[in-house]
């Protein structure tokens, strides 16, 4: 999404990842919070044990705050060319999503906080990140009324029925900040941004209004440098919400809100005139190239205890190729300093980097998974067998994940972490405690299927029961690595008597209203048995889990096809945990709930985690202070610190 991670946007991320496009960058393998062991070492136990006092422990704060990132002092000058094989379409962060747009915003439109390369909240325009421990976040004593006072616009149907206590956040911002046109920048701009988001004339925002609409009080001090924000309900995604980019009131207020999606920050020449807050400003904008130059008004920095400074680089060029192979060729020819938006399947091609350049591969906050459609209707629309947990477990046992990875990505290093938890390595809320990890065991899988009544009666190698064969329609986007994975899975399943019909369908993610109800291989319509795609995750576990696993998010006629619970998981346990998560503010409690959610997930097996994905980059070796960011902040999260070392 945006550099400042919008709360509910896991949905968006999954769509992009499903298209075979990485939507974020990867993390430093040596980063302190990277790896599966760290959250486990801070295991909070069950959610019921986490008292507010305990949750404010140093351990939790260490996981969320206090990045180890420190930038070297750089030398001014130089131009860096950043390439993507998809073009940016919108430069207003509230109307657009996707890595291709995000990386541009990250250089121009900032917010109070950012997510660092080691997965922590760090100040951007803010002076500090408020916490419960330091009194920056204060929880209300108890839940008040069923409705927030004086909020007529709130859509309570979006929120869980259970009331949770509200909370207050004390905000601050660095002094003497200005927009690129010299106008002052302070917390009044954040207040304006909130009001702009909630304006009834809005024509649709990628992140919606969830979270903003439960703010019942936003008081800015006279000097604009501090503010007090009160949420009338608990909300787990408040950091991401308050990290949203600021919009310039003096510019946006001149544009009718109903026309803002068309006239504010388009990928066109008029955007050059628009004020920005980041270290770079627009110099020339065209569909296939965006040139940025140093914003001389920028007087900030990202990270704990950093020293404000203008960007070191003179300029940045975003170059958008129309074809991934052509972009790789451009990198190999030395035309590009930073090649982005690549996956582990591209690593082999990138390894032939010329002298002075390098290809890197790092774990990303995303994972590839094999899903079961639990609708239980008919084969092709949720095979009835997949409604049986024993069959799902047996299918999971039949998957040799290591063999699959090695077949799909020959010669590419196997990710370190064992694929089990539905949370990618490096995310602070990843847990390995109490997970039900299913190991590869084809004999046990065969026995379990046998016990469930699926036997091969006619000797054709495929099991049957009551005239129904154990044959699954397996759908994916058609990306080569998924086609290959489907072929491997089909072979592995055949060994236990399951037929997998490997089917590529590029429109698999088309929306509910985009396709006929019976169109084969559509996730919204549930016209498949099994599928493979990827989830891209953020530091906001609410956004990462709620829209994918809550039963209210199953696309149906009643909800007009909204939601991305494509596996049709309908579990009271999962719903209850997610409802609790929705209204939980305390990061310690959120952390505990995260562990519980991962346990529930692995027990229910709505999907089998196949492997954690990696991000591949091509880099000019002279580029210093480049710190790979596995989150949606993109690698440009610290672009002001980048500089070109001599030689």
């Amino acid at each position, binding site marked *: 999404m945006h550099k400042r991670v919008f709360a509910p946007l896991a949905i968006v991320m999954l769509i992009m990842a499903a298209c075979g496009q990485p939507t974020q960058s990867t993390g430093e393998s040596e980063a302190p919070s990277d790896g599966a062991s760290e959250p486990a070492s801070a295991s909070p136990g069950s959610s019921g044990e986490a008292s507010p006092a305990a949750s404010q422990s140093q351990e939790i704060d260490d996981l969320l705050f206090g990045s180890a990132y420190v930038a070297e002092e750089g030398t001014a000058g130089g131009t860096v060319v950043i390439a993507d094989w998809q073009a940016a379409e919108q430069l207003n962060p509230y109307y657009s999503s996707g890595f291709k747009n995000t990386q541009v915003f990250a250089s121009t439109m900032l917010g109070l906080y950012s997510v660092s390369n080691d997965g922590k909240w760090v100040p951007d325009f803010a002076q500090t990140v408020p916490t419960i421990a330091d009194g920056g976040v204060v929880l209300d004593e108890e839940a008040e009324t069923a409705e927030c006072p004086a909020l007529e616009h709130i859509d309570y149907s979006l929120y869980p029925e259970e009331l949770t206590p509200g909370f207050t956040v004390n905000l601050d911002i660095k002094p003497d900040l200005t927009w690129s046109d010299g106008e002052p920048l302070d917390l009044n701009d954040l207040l304006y941004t909130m009001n702009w988001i909630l304006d009834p004339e809005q*024509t649709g*925002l990628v992140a919606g209004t969830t979270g903003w609409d439960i703010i019942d009080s936003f008081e800015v001090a006279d000097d604009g440098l501090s503010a007090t924000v009160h949420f009338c309900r608990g909300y787990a995604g408040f950091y991401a919400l308050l990290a949203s980019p600021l919009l310039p009131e003096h510019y946006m207020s001149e544009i009718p809100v109903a026309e803002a999606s068309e006239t504010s920050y388009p990928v066109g*020449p008029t955007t050059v005139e628009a004020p920005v807050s980041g270290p770079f400003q627009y110099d020339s904008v*065209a569909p*296939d190239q965006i040139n940025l130059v140093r914003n001389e008004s920028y007087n900030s920095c990202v990270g704990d205890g950093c020293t404000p400074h203008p960007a070191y680089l003179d300029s940045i060029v975003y170059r958008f190729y129309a074809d991934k192979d052509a972009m790789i*060729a451009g990198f*190999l*020819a030395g035309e590009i300093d930073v090649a982005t938006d690549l996956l582990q399947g591209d690593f082999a091609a990138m390894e032939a980097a010329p002298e002075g350049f390098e290809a890197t591969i790092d774990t990303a906050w995303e994972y590839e998974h094999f899903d079961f459609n639990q609708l239980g209707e008919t084969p092709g629309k949720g095979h009835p067998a997949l409604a049986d947990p024993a069959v799902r477990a047996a299918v999971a046992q039949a998957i040799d994940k290591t063999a699959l990875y090695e077949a799909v990505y020959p010669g590419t290093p196997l990710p370190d972490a064992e694929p089990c938890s539905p949370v990618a390595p490096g995310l602070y809320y990843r847990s390995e405690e109490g997970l039900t990890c299913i190991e590869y065991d084809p004999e046990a899988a065969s026995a379990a299927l046998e016990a469930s009544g699926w036997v091969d009666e006619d000797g054709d190698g495929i099991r049957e029961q009551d005239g129904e064969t154990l044959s699954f329609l397996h759908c994916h986007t058609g990306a080569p690595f998924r086609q290959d994975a489907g072929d491997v899975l089909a072979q592995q399943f055949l060994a236990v008597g399951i037929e997998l019909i490997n089917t590529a369908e590029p429109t698999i993610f088309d929306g509910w209203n985009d396709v006929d109800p019976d169109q084969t291989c559509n996730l919204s319509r549930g016209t498949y048995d099994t599928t493979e795609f990827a989830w891209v995750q953020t530091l906001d576990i609410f956004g990462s889990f709620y829209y994918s696993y809550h039963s209210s998010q199953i696309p149906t006629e009643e909800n007009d096809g909204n939601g991305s619970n494509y596996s049709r998981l309908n579990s009271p346990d999962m719903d209850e945990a997610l409802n609790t998560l929705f209204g939980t503010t305390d990061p310690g409690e959120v952390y505990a709930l995260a562990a519980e959610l991962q346990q529930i997930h692995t027990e229910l097996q709505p999907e089998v985690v196949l492997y954690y994905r990696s991000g591949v980059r091509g880099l000019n070796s002279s580029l210093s202070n480049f710190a790979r960011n596995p989150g949606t902040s993109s690698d440009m999260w610290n672009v002001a610190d980048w500089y070109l070392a001599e030689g």
Partner: protein
Amino acid sequence: MVRFIIRRLIGLIPIFLGVIVISFALMQAAPGGPENAILGQQRRMTPQQIDSWLSRWCLQREDDIFAIAVEFGGWSGILNCNNEGFDRFLSEQGGLNFLPAFLGGGSNGLLHGDLGSSINTARPVAEMIGERVPGTLILTITALVLWVSVAIAVGVYAAVRRYSVFDHSMTFFSYVFYSLPTFWLGLMLIFLFGPLLGWLPTGGVVNARDWPAFGSPQFWGAVANRPLDAIVDIGRHLVLPVLTLVAVNIAADSRFVRASMLETLNQDYVRTAKAKGLSQRAVVGKHAFRNALLPLVTNVALSLPFLFSGAVVTETIFSWPGMGRLFIEALGDRDYFLLMGIILVTSMIILLANLIADVVYAVVDPRIRYT
């Protein structure tokens, strides 16, 4: 001739209208609608917001004939989308909406020069098309001039030297290049001349590091300041895409010229010219070539729309910001207004190209007279 041209131009109007009406109807009849295209951007819109957005463009949720007619009315400028019911025929000034603004008409839609905004980028369609035209023209004019010139030269020489080593070689290479998929040839050329040899840039119109974004006002300003640098840099970037287009397209046209030339060389008047003792150059150049050229005129005229519509695959492979790439992007994004804008302009050019071909016939062949 003038009367013929005017008559043909008038005759083109109903054809043009038919093309855009059918195109619009087909597009609207396809599954999903503009509202799904905008929702496809992942925007979270309430039903009221969707209705409000649709209303601004006279778009309907229904897919029946009436709904399509209303949508067409809005897009074309016959209807005023700000009003409801029969009032939609009226402009804000109170006159009939389809009339020009100075006669009390409206300001929206094709009739008033407004092609709408792209659903995907929210930018005016005319602006988006306008900024892609220079790129396409630079590429396609260069390629077309080269491939037609080379095709003529090769075709004529192969016909004159029939069954020679040259003729056989050209036949062989023609079929080879004709069989090569453009995307494959393009990528091979990129990897050969880019990473491997390092002689030529791999894509784009200019060196991104040295120039403002191509097509932006800042770019043209920079070109005005450094015209020679711009020509040299664009020239370097043109080599590979033009080579790709020429290699693939030269095959068909050279074979065409060869066949036409062979037929002409067997005509009695050519034999007579030879019998009169004219030189080979005079026989081929003056007598045979001009007549052999006639069928090629049709071919070239039909290629004219390519000048505007662009070379879809080549532009994509070489990241060339042209019309072909824009069309593919619009198609993928179901960007209805943008697609209609491109179809509109392309169909107009196709119709005009046919007219030009007819006129050129008369110029090339003195026997043809239009009355």
